[in-house]
C-alpha cells in the first residue's frame, strides 16, 4: 500500500495534528502557562484555529485539481469537523470567560457588538454542516444537495475573517492575511466555475 491510498494513516495523522493544539493548551492550562490573561489567549487561539481549519477545508479542492492530491478528499470532512470543534471551543470560552456563564446576556451582547453578531452567525452556519457530516447524511441528502449545502463554508469563512478584522484594535496583519488566503481560495472557485463548459451538470466537483 502506497502513501496515497493509505486512508487509515491519513486519518490518524490529521486526527493527531488537529487535536495537538488543544492538548497543548490543556497542558499549558494545567501548568499555569497560558500567560497573564488565559481567557484572552484561549479565545484568540481557538478562533484562529477555527479559521485555519476552514482554510484547510477549502484547500482540498485546489490541491486535488492542481497537484492531484486526491487522497485529501476523504479527509475533508474531518478537517471541517475540526473547524467546528475549535469554533465550539471558541464559543464556550466566550460564554465562560466574557459572559461569566450569564447566557441571557448573550442576546444583548449580540445586539450591542456587531462583531459578536457576525461571529455567532458564522458559528451557527457551521452547525448544519457538522450535523450532516456523516456518511448516512450524505446518502440521505444525495451527493449533489450535500455539496450545495456545504458551500455554506464559503459564507462561513468570510464571516469568520470579518469577525476577526472587526475586533482587532489597529494591527490588521493577521486578519488581512486570512482575508487574502480566503480571497484566493474563493477566487479559484469562481474562475474554475467560469471555465467549466456550460450545460454540464455539476456532479463530481468539490
Amino acid at each position, binding site marked *: 500500500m502506497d502513501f496515497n491510498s493509505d486512508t487509515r494513516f491519513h486519518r490518524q495523522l490529521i486526527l493527531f495534528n488537529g487535536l495537538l493544539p488543544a492538548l*497543548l493548551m490543556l497542558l499549558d492550562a494545567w501548568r499555569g502557562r497560558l500567560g497573564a490573561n488565559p481567557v484572552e489567549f484561549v479565545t484568540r487561539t481557538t478562533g484562529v484555529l477555527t479559521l485555519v481549519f476552514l482554510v484547510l477545508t477549502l484547500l482540498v479542492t485546489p490541491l486535488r485539481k492542481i497537484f492531484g492530491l486526491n487522497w485529501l478528499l476523504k479527509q475533508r470532512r474531518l478537517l471541517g469537523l475540526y473547524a467546528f470543534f475549535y469554533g465550539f471551543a471558541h464559543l464556550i470560552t466566550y460564554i465562560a470567560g466574557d459572559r461569566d456563564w450569564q447566557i441571557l446576556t448573550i442576546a444583548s451582547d449580540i445586539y450591542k457588538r456587531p462583531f459578536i453578531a457576525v461571529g455567532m452567525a458564522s458559528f451557527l452556519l457551521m452547525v448544519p454542516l457538522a450535523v450532516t457530516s456523516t456518511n448516512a447524511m450524505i446518502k440521505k441528502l444525495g451527493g449533489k444537495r450535500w455539496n450545495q449545502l456545504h458551500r455554506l463554508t464559503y459564507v462561513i469563512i468570510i464571516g469568520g475573517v470579518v469577525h476577526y478584522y472587526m475586533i482587532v484594535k489597529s494591527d490588521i496583519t493577521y486578519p488581512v492575511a486570512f482575508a487574502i488566503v480566503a480571497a484566493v481560495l474563493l477566487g479559484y472557485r469562481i474562475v474554475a466555475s467560469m471555465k467549466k463548459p456550460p450545460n454540464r451538470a455539476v456532479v463530481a466537483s468539490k
Partner: protein
Amino acid sequence: MPSSPRPSPDEITPEETFNDRRLFMKSAIWAGSGLATAGLYRKFSPRPEVKNNGTAITSITDSAYASALAANDKPNTFSEIAGYNNYYEFSTDKSEVAFRAKNFVTNPWTIEVEGLVQKPRTFDLSDLMKFESFERIYRFRCVEGWSMVIPWVGFPLSKLLNSVEPMSKATHVAFTTYFDIKQMPDSDSAGISLPYVEGLRLDEAMHPLTLLATGLYGKTLPNQNGAPVRLVVPWKYGFKSIKSVVKITLTDREPPTTWNLANPGEYGFYSNVNPTVDHPRWSQSRERRIGEGGTRETLMFNGYADQVASLYAGMDLRKNF
C-alpha cells in the same frame, strides 16, 4: 502493465525490509508533522515567567496612597505586570513585548522639557533620580477591559513641571515617546502613527496622583513597561500613561494624541475610566483583573473619583469621553 523484465528474486526487496522502511517513513511523518504543529502552537503561545532584572531604587512608601486601595486590590505579580504589555512599537502581542524589547537601549536617556515654560531644560537620568522617589500602588485599567494593581516607584509629575516654571498661558501638556525604527523594527505593522504622543490638561498633569514612574516593585522599570521613565495617570485608561518619554511640551491648546488620531470615534482625549460610557465595540462596565477568574465591576475614574471628579465638574463625560 507492459512487458517490463521480471525482477530476479534477489532484486525484490524482502518483505521485512519493505515493512521496516514503511514503518520508518510513517514514523518520520508522524514526528515531523507533530513537531511542526507543536512548534507553530508554541510560536504563538505565551512565554514563561519574566524575571525582574532591574536595579533597586530607594523609595518612600506613600501610605496614604496604599490605603486608598480596596481590600481585594492585591498587587499583581511582577511576571504578570512585566509579561503582559501593550507597547506597539515592539509588538502588538502583549506576551511578546518583553522579549522584543529586551535590547532596547534606555541609558543614556534625556527628557526635553520645553514650550511655554520659563526655564526649558533637558533632564538626564541622574537629574530624574534627584527627585525624591515614592512607592505608589495604583489600580491600572486598560481600555481593552483588563486591569492590574501595580506598585510603581516614581515622583509626582508636578514636581518636575514646577521646576521648569510653566507660563500662565500654558493650559496643556504634550508627551512624546522615543521612536527609532532600528530599535523597533516590528513597529511597521502596529497600525498607529509613531512616535506615540499623548497629552493632559495642565490641571490633570499637576494632580498629585499623576506620576512620572521610574520603577516597579522597588527596581528600575523593565523595558517593556516603559523604561526608563513613563507617565502614570491611574484614573485614565492605560494608553494615556505614555511610556519611555523623551519630550514634554507645555502648550496653550489640546495636543494630538495617538489613539485619538487612529480612531477618533473610539478613543477620546480625556479617556477617563468610566463604566457608564462604553467603547463602541465592547462594554466598559466590567473588567477582568489579571490573575482572577471572573470579571469585576469597573469603578468610576477607576476608583479615584474622590480625588479627581472635581477636575471634570460640569463637563458632559459622554461627549468628552
